[in-house]
């Protein structure tokens, strides 16, 4: 197979998967009327925001050969932090910055622990998954944190729900996706992230500061998770320490469906975004078909397995 064709197939694979999923829900009579409409896609895009922003950070981590299981807890934690600050009278933008930084701080701790203790990221972040969930409940005194109102509440909606405008969260996701893609593909930092994931020993040998780099990757990804917490807060309009349980699996699945390899060195932002969309379309479509939630979970689980298997086939053909 000519290399350009192989590359096209590799990049178009997830996109093709998205088209198949969309087609699947466009055919049945129950959903045909409503599914393929602009407003439904507006809903789908809005529903993708939190997972997609998390997937941006996760793409960096997975490409570097790591994993972060504490995303869901971090999102809950930062949304509780945000709710408390707003309660105290903070404006939306100071609260936004504080939430991003608190997510970044959690990431910094993860990265530092991984680099300093030389333990595998899976274990460290499995630990922080519990630590952050507990901390969120502690901060919120084991209940949801409510506040009067805040402009943040409007960031996931549009003034007129039937207008064609998209909510701020969607635009932020789009902009960040482009920035992250450029960061990963066209900067020295990004090149080093790929090098670290492809072969850590080589990266070290070639003078890449691997320890510092790992800390930076987790901290930066943590900032993304903090931002995902902002939109979680915007959607719920309250800080809920029990929110986003299991969301780490959706986020990791998006990245993997998007073609990244769990062993590192491979992955694209575009792929991860399409992966996140596939998951959202599946959820949205299943709801409209009236399928029970357990059925959605089964389907999404199977899609992950199929996606990774198809990816292996593609890679095999390449080699």
């Amino acid at each position: 197979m000519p290399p350009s064709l192989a590359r096209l197939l590799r990049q178009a694979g997830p996109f093709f998967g998205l088209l198949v999923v969309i087609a699947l829900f466009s055919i049945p009579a129950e959903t045909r009327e409503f599914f393929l409409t602009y407003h439904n896609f507006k809903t789908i895009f809005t529903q993708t925001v939190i997972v997609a922003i998390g997937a941006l950070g996760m793409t960096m981590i997975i490409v570097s050969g790591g994993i972060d299981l504490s995303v869901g807890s971090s999102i809950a934690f930062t949304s509780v932090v945000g709710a408390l600050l707003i309660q105290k009278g903070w404006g939306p933008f100071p609260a936004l910055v504080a939430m991003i930084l608190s997510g970044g701080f959690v990431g910094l701790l993860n990265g530092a622990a991984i680099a300093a203790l030389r333990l595998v990221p899976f274990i460290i972040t499995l630990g922080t998954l519990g630590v952050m969930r507990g901390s969120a409940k502690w901060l919120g005194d084991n209940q949801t944190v409510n506040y009067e109102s805040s402009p943040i509440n409007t960031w996931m909606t549009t003034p007129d729900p039937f207008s064609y405008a998209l909510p701020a969260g969607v635009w932020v996701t789009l902009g960040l996706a482009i920035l992250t893609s450029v960061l990963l593909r066209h900067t020295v930092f990004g090149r080093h992230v790929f090098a670290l994931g492809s072969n850590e020993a080589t990266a070290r040998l070639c003078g890449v500061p691997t320890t510092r780099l790992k800390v930076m990757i987790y901290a930066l990804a943590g900032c993304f998770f903090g931002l995902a917490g902002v939109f979680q807060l915007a959607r719920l309009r309250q800080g809920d320490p029990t929110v986003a349980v299991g969301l780490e699996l959706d986020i990791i699945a998006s990245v993997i469906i998007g073609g990244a390899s769990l062993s590192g060195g491979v992955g694209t932002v575009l792929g991860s975004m399409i992966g996140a969309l596939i998951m959202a379309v599946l959820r949205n479509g299943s709801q409209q078909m009236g399928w029970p939630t357990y059925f959605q979970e089964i389907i999404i689980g199977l899609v992950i397995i199929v996606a990774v298997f198809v990816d292996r086939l593609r890679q095999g053909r390449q080699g």
Partner: protein
Amino acid sequence: MTSAPALRLTGIAKAFGATRALKGVSFELAAGEVHALIGENGAGKSTLMKVLSGAHAPDAGSMELAGRPYAPSDPHDARLKGVAMIYQELNLALHLSAQENILLGAESARGGWIDHRASRARAREALAQLGHESLDLDRPVRAFSIAEQQVIEIARALLTNPRVLIMDEPTSSLTPADTERLFAAITRLRGQGVGIIYISHFLEECRRIADRYTVLKDGETVGSGPMPGASLDHIVTLMTGREVRELYPKSEHSLGPVVLEARELVSAPRLRRASLQVRAGEIVGLAGLIGAGRTELLRAVFALDACDAGAVIVSGGRPGAPTPRSRWAEGVGFLSENRKEEGLMLSQSLADNLTLTKASAFSRLGLISPRRQVAVAQRWIDALGVKCRDATQPIGQLSGGNQQKIALARLLEHPARIFLLDEPTRGIDVGSKAQIYRLIGDLARAGKAVVVVSSYLPELLGLCDTIGVMCRGELAAVRPRSAWTEAEIMRVATGAG
């Protein structure tokens, strides 16, 4: 010989898409014979071995095993029919014991319960065939040396009583002493009537152990004959299709000031004490047995491993604790002996591998220009004759020799002025070797300092100005090349001196 040969191949052909890896190979192996299979990388040896061991089915031609048609469906089937293969990369379960590894997949069992006594007896018997009956069967395999691990792997192959044993580069990571022990084991197996196909890049070794040779070039048999009395020059000419007169360059170069010095360097546990001076324009060789601390010396100098005592002084160096990053900045480059695990990012492109030490040199306003990276890589691809599709190809798809050229080009492009080369020619074909020797010669002439670690003594003696021999973690002797012979190096390396 009146009986049918152990193995006979006639007109074997195999193509992958448009690439004709084998174009018609004929080959005969007698029982109780060691047959060297020689050829450059890409000559078709690996494909032929995969056909023999059942991993690939041939497109044309026939195979006979002891006079009967032989068409294995997969490697397991081949093993049952009596063809066993020892790969260059060992296939052992490192956490399991020697005995468990030898019997893996062929355990003596009754109703699912392992029969410990019978297992033990069979493992012992296999080891005894190799002259290693005293090996500790209960020790986990990772606690053994590479040489012992290889013995364990061969013992496993012997369980099925193979008629044909294929060994791919069995000595590539062995010390001379271990090679001798392997040869003793091979001689025993030959005495028991096993036919052995011996694949190696070391021609002197082939000459010592083999009874006959066959040379492959571009997927065809280009020559075959009895090994005793065969001229190595003739074999090299067959392999390369050209005459290689001077493998080692006799380049005129003069020595400058000392640019690198290690003083009483210690890095526990392997490096116990080493002092070394390297001058500009000098090629210094480090000889010694595996585990003598040669690699550890280079790694300590390059700050990949921590030093417990002593100092490394690089001329014009920077103050502060050294790191690999600061070493590159000082113009010191390191080539790892372990291309796959440490040297290269196999899933990444040639261009990325080549420019990793100086990625920022290709960026403007923080953004990397892939076009400039590729242009630079293309220059080296042309200069070194690297066979590849283009500079964006993942480097894992290249042959060992071509990978090594890119790994070396990384140091050249950086550019380094002090080259630390650990086993620069391991596992690569003769043509690439000659080219790397020429490169090293050119570097010295240009006033660069080169330190070469090698287990292949003719290479050190042919290439270096100065040779240091390490023994048990200490740099025992550093002398000009003229003061050394192979025997003398071995005497010092084994601690007999």
